[in-house]
């Protein structure tokens, strides 16, 4: 039994529904800070999943180490603010470009590899970056981590002040805005000539090269965009949580959860991964945790296996049409 057999909506409708849901969710949760904080993380994960899926779902290059870009963004922005006294907003943008640099450094050699080898090389890259962060103590304070990372500065719009230190609501909507921005970038990229090139590369690299698609350049560009967005979310995360350690910033779950979320939501769609992220966060929080204090991830493992086996296109993969 697949959802896809019952209803069919277009990508655009799915995106409108998703962002509409994200918009009103805080009202449903009556702006409860705790639930908002859960969904802030879900939105961060959603945005990273969108970026991951641009690379994997659209261009066909599966990465196993997006935590690298996430951590680079988080540490990059925090260090610019803590050590160089930058404004956090500016630092976030520059940190996102650090992510792009990381993408160029690993992508240039790694895109000569295919399939699991590429996925593994990114995994190795993530570990190397993490270990460097751990050992460049003079810069990063090693395993001690960075404490007291400033929150994003308050924004004044007329008489209204958007505070990012205490208020979960403003943080929530900023995270939602970032996810929307990333979605739009991916959407328009997908529907441009570059997007066509990406699909061609996904289909078959040799054929793509045959019709004149610059395969290597397309793949690298996709990784750069994906890394930029992921690093941006990492930077946001740092200013939201105020604390970083190599273990948390480069946590393997930033590599794994986007994959899981994309799979749940459907890799063949653009919006699916963010739906998947919201869904698995909700499931984990409201259902699995009710069963066990310890080891509620057990359910997560089972669910993952069940979804993969019985609906490999994702729960919504068949319901959302491309156009």
């Amino acid at each position, binding site marked *: 039994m697949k959802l896809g057999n019952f209803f069919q909506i277009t990508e655009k409708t799915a995106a409108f529904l998703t962002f509409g849901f994200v918009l009103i969710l805080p009202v449903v949760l009556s702006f409860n800070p705790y639930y908002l904080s859960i969904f802030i993380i879900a939105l961060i994960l959603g945005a990273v999943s969108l970026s991951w899926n641009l690379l994997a779902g659209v261009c066909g290059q599966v990465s196993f180490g997006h935590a690298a870009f996430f951590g680079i963004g988080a540490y990059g922005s925090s260090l610019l603010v803590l050590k160089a006294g930058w404004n956090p907003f500016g630092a976030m943008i520059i940190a996102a470009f650090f992510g792009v640099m990381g993408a160029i450094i690993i992508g240039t050699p790694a895109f000569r590899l295919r399939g699991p080898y590429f996925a593994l090389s990114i995994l190795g890259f993530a570990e190397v970056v993490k270990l460097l962060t751990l050992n460049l103590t003079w810069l990063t304070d090693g395993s001690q981590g960075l404490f007291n990372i400033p929150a994003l500065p308050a924004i004044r719009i007329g008489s209204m002040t958007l505070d990012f230190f*205490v208020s979960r609501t403003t943080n929530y909507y900023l995270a939602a805005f970032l996810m929307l921005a990333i979605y739009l970038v991916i959407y328009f990229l997908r529907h441009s000539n570059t997007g066509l090139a990406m699909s061609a590369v996904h289909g078959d690299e040799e054929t793509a090269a045959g019709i004149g698609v610059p395969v290597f350049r397309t793949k690298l560009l996709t990784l750069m965009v994906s890394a930029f967005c992921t690093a941006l979310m990492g930077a946001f*995360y740092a200013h939201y949580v105020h604390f970083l350690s190599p273990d948390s910033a480069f946590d393997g779950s930033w590599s794994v959860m986007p994959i899981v979320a994309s799979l749940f939501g459907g890799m063949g769609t653009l919006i699916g991964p963010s739906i998947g992220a919201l869904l698995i966060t909700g499931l984990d929080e409201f259902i699995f945790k009710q069963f066990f*204090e310890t080891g509620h991830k057990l359910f997560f493992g089972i669910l993952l296996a069940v979804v993969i086996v019985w609906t490999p296109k994702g729960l919504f993969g068949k319901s959302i049409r491309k156009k």
Partner: protein
Amino acid sequence: MGSRMIKKCWCVGLLLVFGLGTAWAAPAIKIGTHAPQSGSLAKHGIEQIKGIRLAAEDFEKKAKIKVDMIVYDDESNPQKAVSAVEKLAGVDKVNAIVGGYGSNLVGPASEASERYDTPYLTMGAVDTKLTAKKFKNFFRLNNMPGYVMAQAGAIKDIFAAKKVGVIYSSLAATTEIATTLKGLLQKGGIAVPVFEKFEKGTTNYKPILLKIKDAGCDVLVVEGYFEDYVGTIKDAKILNLPVKAYVGAWGIGTPEFVRELGNMSEYIYGTSIWERGTAPQKAKKEEAEIVANYKSKYQEDPSYIAMLGYLTGKYMLEAIVQGGGTAGTYSPEKTRNALRALDTMSPIGRVAFDEKGDPRFFTCVLFQTQQGEQVVIYPLDRAKGVARYPGVPWGGK
């Protein structure tokens, strides 16, 4: 150190409150706790919760006040810890929070509890930076200097060592304790020719131990965790490492440790906040009671983490009631003040907090495992035996 301490009069007041508690039914207390129940630190988190749970039950019996205890798994993940605190303080509206394990979790968690103006007491975070912000609501039972002083003191006063090799796990707390120890030793004129960090999950310690051998160190200090002690001791045995003493940080020489390592745990030194029988004279009775209750509830001996967990629960619950007054008005303000005013003798020594929330009198003891028993050998005034020095599990020189 903690022998001349006097309980302040508020303790008497507390007893009065307890007495009255039977007369009027005080409203239930909601206490929240978060600790890793899964992930790499789950073992510690689970023990901690066991201790707190027992404290809550004991408190219910004694004070006749119902305690609602809410537990969240923070998965050793900072953002989950923050979420847990936000849920406890924001949704469940608990009166106070205890728990937390690991400085990198307690740091952000304590910030969240400060935002919600909810008192927070922990035993799982020793990083010095944590109290630098002087939060109103943050308290902890233990901090870094307590560990290091016991190690450095024994190395200087008992071993009279000249060269000490310090190796430590790359995790945050062990890095800090090692760095502090190095400074203290060097200030005392003791050379530290080998000072090296190893990664979590190291399985071959021989190359690093060989450096200790080449440098001719008298004492090997391993600031690490269970697996690091097991690994280093096994490898030191193979290499027949010629040092005169093996000193570990925490979690060494525990009953579990002795059970797993057998006679390989003989002679090792370790610091401990508490082990069965190390309570100061004045707290012996309390210690015996807690141990007995723990055993009857869980069919096992409490570890030091379980004991500390128990104490965090106990002091926090008492402080909430202390600040309680009339029904339904447990306020964070009064709870904080009660904690600040606390000065009592406990199985881990004298407990009192300074204005930053750091413990004022916290100190560890250094013990040596002798015939499977932990014999406290330092500080000398709490010592129960004499160090068998030189001596290492693998024979040594």
